[in-house]
């Protein structure tokens, strides 16, 4: 290995391997608050199986999962809860904001709604739709998988 830690043949293959493993074994953490939660349930159930993409193990605990899917409106009362749960997740972690409400507040531009989950936590993928159809959710998860495969920061 070069002395300055620059990637070499061995480490790039390892990086690719680890990224491939992470992308194909995402453990989703469904943070369903409102209507998008029902479409997320439809995605996770038999007709549009998300388990085909490796996201089989749905864990409802932040300590045991790595991909948080925020499905639904985040209100100001819920924001601190979301932040606490995000901080409890271990690295590496990714966040998908599913639907219009968690991307940007959606149709609810009112006093008590956070205009997007990214008011409190960093989001990787935004899936538009109100609610997005399950095909849209699967597309979002696949884009996240592409993003993970391009991840170069594994060894730092």
């Amino acid at each position, binding site marked *: 290995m070069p002395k300055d830690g620059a990637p070499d043949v061995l480490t790039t293959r390892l990086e690719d391997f680890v990224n491939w493993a992470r992308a194909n074994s995402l453990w989703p953490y*469904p943070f369903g608050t409102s209507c998008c939660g*029902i479409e997320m349930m439809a995605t996770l159930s038999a007709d549009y199986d998300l388990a085909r993409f490796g996201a089989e193990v749905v864990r409802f605990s932040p300590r045991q999962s790595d991909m948080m899917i925020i499905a639904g409106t985040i*209100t100001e009362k*819920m924001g601190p809860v979301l932040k606490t749960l995000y901080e409890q997740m271990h690295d590496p972690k990714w966040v998908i904001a599913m639907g219009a409400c968690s991307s940007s507040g959606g149709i609810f531009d009112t006093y*008590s*709604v956070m205009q997007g989950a990214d008011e409190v936590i960093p989001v990787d993928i935004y899936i538009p739709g109100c609610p997005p159809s399950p095909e849209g959710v699967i597309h979002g998860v696949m884009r996240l998988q592409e993003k993970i495969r391009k991840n170069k920061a594994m060894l730092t």
Partner: protein
Amino acid sequence: MNENTGLQSPSRKKDAFDDDENQDIFESSQMLINIGPQHPATHGTLRVACRLNGEVVVDSRCELGYLHRGMEKLGEVKTYHKFIPYTDRLNYCSALQNNVAYVTTIEKLMGIEIPPRNIYIRTMVCEMARIIDHIICVGINAFDLGAMTYFLLGFHQREEAYTLIESLCGSRLTTSYTRIGGLSGDLPDNFLPRMKKWLDGVETCFKELDKLLTNNRIWVDRTQGVGVFTAEQALAYSMTGPCLRASNVNIDLRRDRPYLAYKELEFDVPVAKGGDVYDRYLVRMAEIFESVRILRQIVDKMPKGPIWADDKRVRIPEKERVYNSMESLIHHFKFFMEGFDVPEGEAYCPMEGPNGEMGFYAISRGGPKAYRLRIRAPSFFMFQPVDEMIKGENIADVIAVIGSVNIIAGELDR
């Protein structure tokens, strides 16, 4: 630690450990835990903070407001038509029912009569919404307690229903199907035969699912005698819908104050006597079969004719004319941008939704926007007595109770 409690905590059910002399060691170490606002077993965002003595709930507080989106204030800011998509997001498991309830209120304010075909289509759509809402409620209740098959098979029937609904109005979940004085579109050509096929599928599937759970030893043991609520308690908390009928109170607005096409249809209203989680499950299963029966009658009796009311205040111009004629284009533009004038008055139109009495109370003082729009959401009344229902139960039963009461966070908090 609160050291002032004696041996007996108030209103706790007697169980085998009460006579244990070492009870006081455990009394003073009561644990405070939070169920929600994010928990796999909650239907959306609600919170039940419990004080536990071992596994038994001694005291609890229910809290809501985690999905308060200001819909009632939006009702004053948006015109009557612009509010229709917001009504889908109330009880999002049965969005069509909310659409129908809202436009019926506004039509009552304006004094509009809708033609028979429209009435029948709206009744059909309400009953479809009832079936799919009950599938979710019982499915998730069973899923929480470990019985996953009901959820997976039931959701397949929901997907078939979504295909039908998508051919009707373009969207699976948040439909915005009704318009004031009409509907967004008529039934597609082969809708009724496909509906018949779906009904056959639902009946077969639910006869099978009935065999899975109704006499299942584990299900019965986990749900019978849990969360018992008597008729007096239910009426004091203004509960409505299947939960009230499971507590031996025979009220159903479809039969007692008929609206839409229910006067001409034959159906029974299932009532159970026990008031526990098992009875609520039985009432919901029976209601699914009754809804299938109502839908078969509607499919046979569907009248032909127009779907729009003959009222030029609310008639939205047809798309072909909007694209080809200048006057229609301007009419269309002004209709949706400025709204139409609704006369002064007020109306409250409750309907028997899948969850209970769902109603909109609208006060109009002229103009295109409501002065006050109040949403009477059944889940709000259903969540309040949960504190009383779970006192003295084990923590595992709390999940069963919350699931059986079918709280939809969208309409709980509005």
